[in-house]
Every structure is written in C-alpha cells, then in structure tokens.
C-alpha cells in the first residue's frame, strides 16, 4: 500500500495541477492509513520539490536524467519500477497529455484499474468508488475500482491545494530503462503561449466572433493582463485563423475549468459550453440579449464588448 504522485513542472516550477494531485494523494493516503510520496523528473530545483511537503508529501523520488523529458513511454517504465520497488499501489496524476500517457502505460504494466477526470476523493465505505467528470463536463459517473492497484488522473482545478507546513526529503531514484523506451525522437519544441498556460489558468478571458477580427484582440489581451489571465477563443475564431488552434476551448478543443471564465462576444453554442462548463464562475459579455451563453452564466452584461471591455479593464486595475 502507499500512494505515489506524478509531478510535472514548467520552467522550474511545479505545475498547479500537480500541487492539486499531491494534496489529493496525501489526503487519500491519510484515509488509507498509509504514506504518500511524489515522483519527479528532470531539473526542477530541489527547493521547489522540498516544498511539496506543504501539500503533504513525505518524500520525493527524483529522476535527474534529462533524457526522459517528454518521453512518456520511458517515464512510465520508471514510475512503475518505483511503484514496485517502494511498494506503492496507487498512482495519482493530473490530467494532461503527459499525465494521460504515463498513467495509461503504467496501468497496462502493473494491471491497475484506471479512472480519469476524477473530481473528488473516493468513497470507501463499501469498496473504492470515484466520481468522474464525463460527457465533457455534462455529467458525472460513479465508478467502482475493483483492482488492488489503481491509477487515477485528476481533473484540473477540481481538488483544492492544501497548504500545510512540511519539508519533503528528496531521494534520487535510478530506474533501469531499456533503449526501446526511447523510440521517440523529439526534434524541437515551439512555445506559442503567452505568460499564462491556458489549461492551468485560474482566470481565462475568451473571445468569439463578436470580436469582429484578430486586429481587435488588444482589448481582450489588456483585460487578460490586468487579471493575470490566460487568453482563449471559440472554435469559429480558431477556424478562421484569427487565433491559434491551441487557444480553442470547446468540445473538440481544450477543456478548461478555471475559477473565472470571461466570454467576450461568444454566443455559447453547446459545443463551446462543453469545454467551459466546469468553470466555477462564468461571466458573459455580449450585445445579443438572446445569446444562449447567458443561460449558463453567473454574471452577464448585455452590451458592446468594444465599449464594456476597456472600462472593465480600468475598473479591475483599480482594485489590483
């Protein structure tokens, strides 16, 4: 028994979603009367990893070798070796393209049941039942995990980060990985985002066709900057190449679940709502009072985005 948590970092900082995963793993370990540890790859500074003690991790297994970066097949081999060697039966990961792939491969390696998009701690009075977000946020499933070993991927921003005090000890871990696990050859990485990663953002400002053209994105970016928010867009906007595809949120784009989602000039087609319906608070600004998005919103302004948004930006700057 024991809970292992998979850590991802960006530019030397542990991702917010990984802090959520460590908090979840530590709480779960407490409920199971066991311990939790984290596993991290690459060059995240030791001080940053020690701080995972604040979220309840007793120790961090660190694999320093840089060649694992992005190679999920090799990462999965390393994680399953760590689980076997140190006796961990449950693996917790934050949902991401890396976390999904590592979790999937570990599940096949160790015959563990797999539950994705989990939003809460398991119910354990009778078995081990997790609540998962399904149908792109339109419903939940209660799924019983019957295998002894388990892999759980968490939906982002569903579980809050605990802030205790503790210092995790760091232990170097050296897995034994075969060359065939390094079949993928990463040639180049192109960074395209602004300052805030969209899937990790606490606030998202998103624009639709009502923005009338890519040349008008300045007012949206100013608002995002004032809020420390990530920028996003609707599918028609990315289809028309006003904005890059990686900003498209919706059914077939990125699914976001920030604390605050502000939609500017987006009518709110059901496919768009599917990508944002897990947001905690939704603000809609649209001049069309009949826009369906208002039905899914917490707060709304019926008005012209080109008049309202600059005023809103100024009002926010005053309180920040």
């Amino acid at each position, binding site marked *: 028994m024991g809970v292992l948590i998979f850590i991802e970092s960006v530019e030397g900082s542990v991702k917010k979603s990984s802090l959520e995963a460590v908090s979840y793993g530590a709480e779960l370990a407490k409920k199971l009367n066991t311990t939790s540890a984290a596993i991290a790859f690459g060059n995240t500074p030791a001080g940053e990893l020690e701080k995972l003690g604040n979220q309840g991790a007793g120790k961090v297994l660190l694999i320093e070798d840089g060649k694992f970066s992005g190679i999920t097949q090799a990462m999965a081999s390393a994680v399953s070796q760590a689980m076997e060697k140190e006796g961990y039966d449950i693996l917790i990961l934050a*949902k991401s393209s890396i976390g999904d792939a590592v979790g999937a491969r570990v599940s096949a390696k160790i015959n563990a049941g797999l539950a994705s998009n989990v939003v809460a701690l398991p119910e354990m009075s009778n078995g081990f039942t997790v609540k998962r977000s399904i149908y792109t946020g339109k419903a939940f499933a209660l799924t019983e995990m019957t295998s002894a070993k388990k892999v759980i991927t968490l939906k982002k921003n569903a579980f809050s980060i605990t802030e205790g005090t503790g210092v995790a000890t760091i232990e170097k871990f050296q897995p034994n990985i075969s060359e065939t696990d390094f079949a993928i050859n990463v040639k180049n990485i192109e960074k395209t985002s602004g300052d805030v990663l969209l899937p990790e953002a606490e606030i998202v400002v998103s624009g639709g066709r009502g923005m009338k053209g890519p040349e008008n994105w300045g007012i949206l970016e100013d608002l995002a900057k004032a809020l420390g928010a990530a920028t996003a867009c609707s599918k028609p906007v990315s289809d028309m190449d006003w904005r890059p595809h990686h900003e498209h949120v919706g059914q077939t784009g990125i699914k976001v679940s920030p604390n605050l989602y502000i939609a500017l000039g987006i009518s709110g087609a059901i496919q768009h709502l599917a990508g944002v319906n897990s947001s905690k608070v939704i603000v809609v600004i649209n001049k069309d009072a009949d826009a369906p998005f208002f039905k899914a919103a917490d*707060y*709304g302004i019926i008005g012209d985005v080109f008049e309202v948004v600059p005023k809103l930006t100024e009002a926010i700057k005053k309180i920040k």
Partner: protein
Amino acid sequence: MKILVCITHVPDTTSKISFTDNNSKFNSAGVQYIIGPYDDYALARAIELKESSGGTVTVLNVGEAETEPTLRKALAIGADDAVRVNVFPSDSYYVAYQIAQYAKNENYDLILMGRESIDFNGGQVHGIVGEMLNMPSISPVMKLDFNGDTGTLAREIEGGKEFLEVKLPFIAGCQEPIAEWKIPSMRGIMSARTKPLKVIEPVQVEQLSKTISYEMPPAKGACKFVDPENVEELVRLLNQEAKVL
C-alpha cells in the same frame, strides 16, 4: 501501409445528456450517434495516407450490434473493411485490451484513433494499447507525415507544439488539424454496403472497474445582469460575492 483506425460510437456533440433506470444507464432515446469527432480526424488522415501511398485501412470498434451503422459510415468514407468486437465497451483498460488482442496478430504498420472519446473523455486507450503491443504511442497529434518508414509528427503540448520523429510501427491519438473531415460520397455509401464487416467475440479478461451510476451536475442559478454603464458593480460582485478576484 497497413493502417488500423479505432473508432468510437458516441452521441452527437449537440445531444442532451440524461440517464434512465435510476441513473444507472445512459438514455439513448432521441440521441443521434456519430463517429467520435477526433476518431473522424484519424480516419480522414488514414484515408489520405492510403490515397497518397497505397495500403489498406481497417476500422475497428469495440461495441454491441447498434454500432454497426457507425462502422458502415466509416466504410462509406473510404475504409476497406471493418471489425466489430462484440461487447459493451465498459472501461478504457477493457477496450484497449480487446484492441490489442485483435491487433497483435495483424501486423499493422500504424494504428490511429482519436485523442479521446467524447463520452468518457479518458484519452488513455492509445497509451494502454501502445504498452500492450510494446509500441510507442503519441497523443494528441495534429500533424502526421512520413519520410519512408519514419513518421514526422507535431504534437500539441501545454503552451506550444512539439515536433518529433518516430519509426513505424506506432500509435497516434489524433486531433485537428491533422486532416479535414471527409463526407461520404453516394458511391462510397453504396459500396460500403458490400464491404466486409467482421464480428469477433471479445477475449476474456478481468474487469478492473465498473461504473455503478451517473449524476447530473447541479443546476445553474439564474444569470445576474449588470448594467453596461456600471462595470464597477461587476468587479465588486466578482471580488466580494463570487470571491474569484
């Protein structure tokens, strides 16, 4: 190239989601089923690859008899033959196991599928199949080309794109803009009726999870409207009432 495309049979993206039998079963009444949108991209790219450099495209679905119209549609779009593993797709591991068991003796060069299904959104079947077949798996792939037997791919990562190379055979979970969706032609629809659709029985394996029931999210309260001349009020509400600023 011998290509396998795994497709899901899922409710149309505009479907209203509800459950029956005391919230234990999906309510399919009035629901239109489609090829999963991401799987549709995978299928379209597979057909393009076949058209440009030859080979075959097989489509596979793990599902019961009601999924056959979805497989026929994939044949109409241009797949050569179809396989249905005759069992309810109960979880990612189980589905991946059935795919791997079928594929392991067929020597596919390339296995494509969508980045995730739009019903359970797991996004993990490609990785599990990859592990079971001991092949690399890459997802979400937005560009897929070949230079001999080496694939050149672009993968979407958080905040950017990753360009990579990998030798066949491998598995890719696909998303736009890898290809444009294809609409079946009349000729395609006619020929799909006579293309082979093989039904095989599942291979026994232990179930590792079981969905017991479903829940709907709590209903949203009514939208609070703020006067466009008074944006300070919106800021106040977000700050003091919603506490998100």
